[in-house]
């Protein structure tokens, strides 16, 4: 695993190939867009999608927690795909997972999908708005460009296409804008992607799962 060091307005962070960000100064792990319970929501609507995404997403969370041993985990929104009340199994699943990391503080910032995040209060430290933490703004929706200080957000599910040597791939991507704002790729297993093209004042970093590469040189 090869992380990519990056400066956000002077703050050092690391882009992890596991589609997460590590913030060494605060010993904090950041991930965005888990969309837990998505396959189940599809099934309720009559779309026959097999289960597996929620367990896989939480298992990958557990692995990065073990690997980087953070003192805190912050979830940048869209933790749940739909209402928790519609899916009692999901609540149990999350609680079991939480019990494995009982001493780890976990902050959950509300996203547009999290219509019943309050139901997880007590399990997670739920925040209805973004927060400002030691000079870094943490949001679900990427804020307006006029914001002066550094920030990290999710919501877009960015992916980037890379081409060359007769080959082409579409991969999850981190998007850095104006050297101060960072949008994370979606972490959930059953999440699609929004294709981000090259643009001025923007750098895209793709992850192969083993390493992070910058494709806007």
């Amino acid at each position, binding site marked *: 695993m090869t992380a990519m060091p990056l400066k956000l307005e002077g703050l050092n962070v690391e882009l992890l190939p596991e589609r997460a960000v590590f913030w060494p100064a605060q010993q904090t792990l950041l991930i965005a867009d888990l969309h837990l319970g998505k396959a189940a929501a599809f099934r309720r609507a009559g779309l026959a999608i097999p289960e597996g995404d929620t367990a896989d997403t939480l298992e990958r969370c557990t692995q990065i927690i073990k690997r980087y041993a953070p003192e805190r985990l912050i979830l940048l929104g869209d933790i749940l795909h739909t209402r928790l009340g519609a899916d009692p199994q999901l609540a149990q699943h999350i609680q079991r997972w939480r019990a494995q990391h009982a001493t780890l503080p976990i902050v959950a910032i509300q996203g547009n999908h999290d219509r019943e995040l309050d139901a997880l209060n007590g399990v997670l430290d739920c925040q209805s708005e973004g927060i400002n933490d030691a000079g870094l703004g943490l949001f679900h929706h990427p804020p307006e460009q006029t914001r002066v200080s550094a920030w990290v957000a999710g919501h877009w599910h960015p992916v980037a296409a890379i081409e060359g040597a007769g080959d082409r791939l579409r991969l999850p991507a981190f998007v850095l804008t104006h050297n101060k704002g960072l949008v994370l790729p979606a972490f959930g297993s059953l999440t699609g992607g929004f294709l981000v093209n090259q643009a001025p004042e923007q750098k895209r970093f793709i992850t192969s799962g083993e*390493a992070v590469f910058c494709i806007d040189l």
Partner: protein
Amino acid sequence: MTAESIHPALLAWFEAQGWEAARFQRAAWSAYAQGHSGLIHSATGSGKSLAAWGGPLNEALSAQTLSDSAHTTAGVQVLWITPLRALAGDTVANLQAALTGVGLNWQVEKRTGDTPSTTRTRQRRNPPQALVTTPESLSVLLSYADSAQFFSQLKTVVVDEWHELIGTKRGVQLELCLAHLRGLIPELRTWGLSATLGNLNQAMDCLLGNANQGQLIEGPAGRALHIESLLPQPGTRFPWAGHLGTEMLDGVIEYLSAPGSCLLFTNTRSQAERWFESILHARSDWLEGLALHHGSIDHELRERIEAGLSQGQFRCVVATSSLDLGVDFAPVDRVVQIGSPKGVARLAQRAGRRGHQPGRESRILCVPTHAFELLEMAAARQAWNKGELEARVPLRNSLDVLAQHLVTLATGPGFHAEDCLHEVRQTHAYADLTQSQWEWVIAFITQGGAVLAAYPEFQRVVKGIDQRYRIATRAHAQRHRMSIGTINSDTAMHVRYQRGGVIGSIEESFIARLKPGDVFLFAGKRLALVRVKDLTAYVRHSNQRRSVIPRWQGGRLPLSTALADNVLALLAKAQAGQFESPELQALKPLLAVQQRWSALPTPGHLLIEQTRSKEGEHLFIFPFAGRLAHEGLATLLAWRLGQLHPATFSLSVNDYGFELLTDELPAITQDTLRAALSTENLVSDLLAAMNASELARRQFRDIARIAGLVFQGYPGRGKSARQLQASSGLIFDTIVRYDPDNQLLSQARREVLEQALEVQRLRGALEQMATTHLSIYATERFTPLAFPLWAERLRNRLTTQSWHDRVARMVNQLEKAAQTT
């Protein structure tokens, strides 16, 4: 049929039109009167529609005479199925003209996806006697609880342009609907109208199902077909790849300059855009008399063009297969085909658009877009003269279509498993459906499949205490009706001017590649993208010269076996110094270059060329098996070579051969090639190779949509359905991982093998290669045969390298490029 049994009103109307009922028309009417079903086949514009319509008219006229003449029968008597909703309007007008002509007091109306909901509601309460509709709309009609009541008076179903539906999932959907209607009305008569095909008996089996006792009625013998090619001026350098040569444009313009109307057919929409633009650029004074017609253009505009064509308003209409269909629009004076038609039957059909006066021969001018297409034109003439027409192979056991149909019936009146299985097995498509396949589909629509049985939240179809299967909730019913339909397509986006006015629709994947300000060519206009909002691309006019042309899905048919065999035969003659046709004469210098640098491919010799360029090492192989089989061969060969040495290949195919491009090829010898081209483990190797590539995943897109694994959302309410949106690729990956026995996965693989790769043809090619001589040439540059492959942009990839290595390699290349610039 004797004159007495034909109603005088029908004969009188024919006479008033100056027509005489043709023998095949009388035969069809007579068969209809005796209660038969059947298939009528003949050339375009020979009066097929009246052959089918006359039967019901005759019967209704007789019934009207017997009873009170003011009394009209209630309920739908005749269902007329048309493959394109754009044709429904024309059809209604034609059927109405005959009704008026014979004085029958019937209503004829259309019902398609475009019909407003108020009209639909009225039609359901007060149905017309004749209803013109599409296969999809028929399915929707069956999804209402009272469908049996609605169709209780139905006497006959007429399926227009049946040849267009055979071999497609829409055709399978229609087979299922017809079986259901026959279950409701055992004495139902089914009549099909078809162009001439190589497998007419099979076409009739599909239409009529297993109880087929139908009559095959042949229309008047086809007119003579004269195929000529536009030849390049002697001494001009002829484009080797798929470029439009200006030399050819000049010839076409000259041909169009003569008075009269012309239809100019292209094979793809992008080609149509390019030719329209080039003609207009060369002759801006023709602006008023030029039109562009293809499937993405707004249908009102298309209807205006079709009407204008009938009134002789246009000098030239540039069209794609969108005008292959179309019942009886006015004939034109000239027909031009740009590029190879890829099949003899299609060429004949297009040529038939020229004047229908008796005794006038069909004539078509073929314009090559690269040199070797001249060969195909000469081959088409040879095949036509020998009567070698292509067959359309019907589909079997498509479980996705069956799942959709069963949910449709569950949404409507519901069904009993046993009765329904019996009904389904009456079709040609599911005659040998196994019990386990049937049970899987039932499990799929009730529980989501075996794996999902553990998750009770899945809801779609439920079994009632009366053992009937019904849709779970009204919301499910509504979503299902929205999803009925099997035509594959990317999500279509409206293209609209900022100030209003829809121009047409383009696949979302094309728009997604554009940035605001980018200029593209669409509907013959230069448009700049302004913004994208709610599945609409807002555009404005642009004068910028540089632009991109959208590449639409589909429309790229493989060269038929009939044509390919004739091409090779012609090359063998050329090898022997015989250049009999004008096309071969024109190709003589180019074939000489090919022979000097390498060799001519002929039966019994497999030509192989190896070239090195800046891009890497190229391997060209020319089996002449059509582009689909070549796609499979290229994938197979790349995978097998990749087993010797991990590598990433880019593959390029056309109808003559394929190219493998990679950084470094393993040494190519007779032995390595023989081993790599063996038929041993063909299917398992192909499947392994396909998992590495993306073919099955791509094929799954349609299957997922048809079987109801993805939901495309409500029209105009794009965002509210967000929660249920996931790409079929993502769903494919999920199912491969968590439900590997899902039958829809095996169907995707089977479809890739049978349709996307034409595995039968592929196997045949391999068997042939096993006994042919392998002629391997190291060439310094791309030969005339290799060049079009190199220039072919649509490339596939196959890799045996890890994901990470691929990314690292591409990034490495990017960095190198960045350093040098």
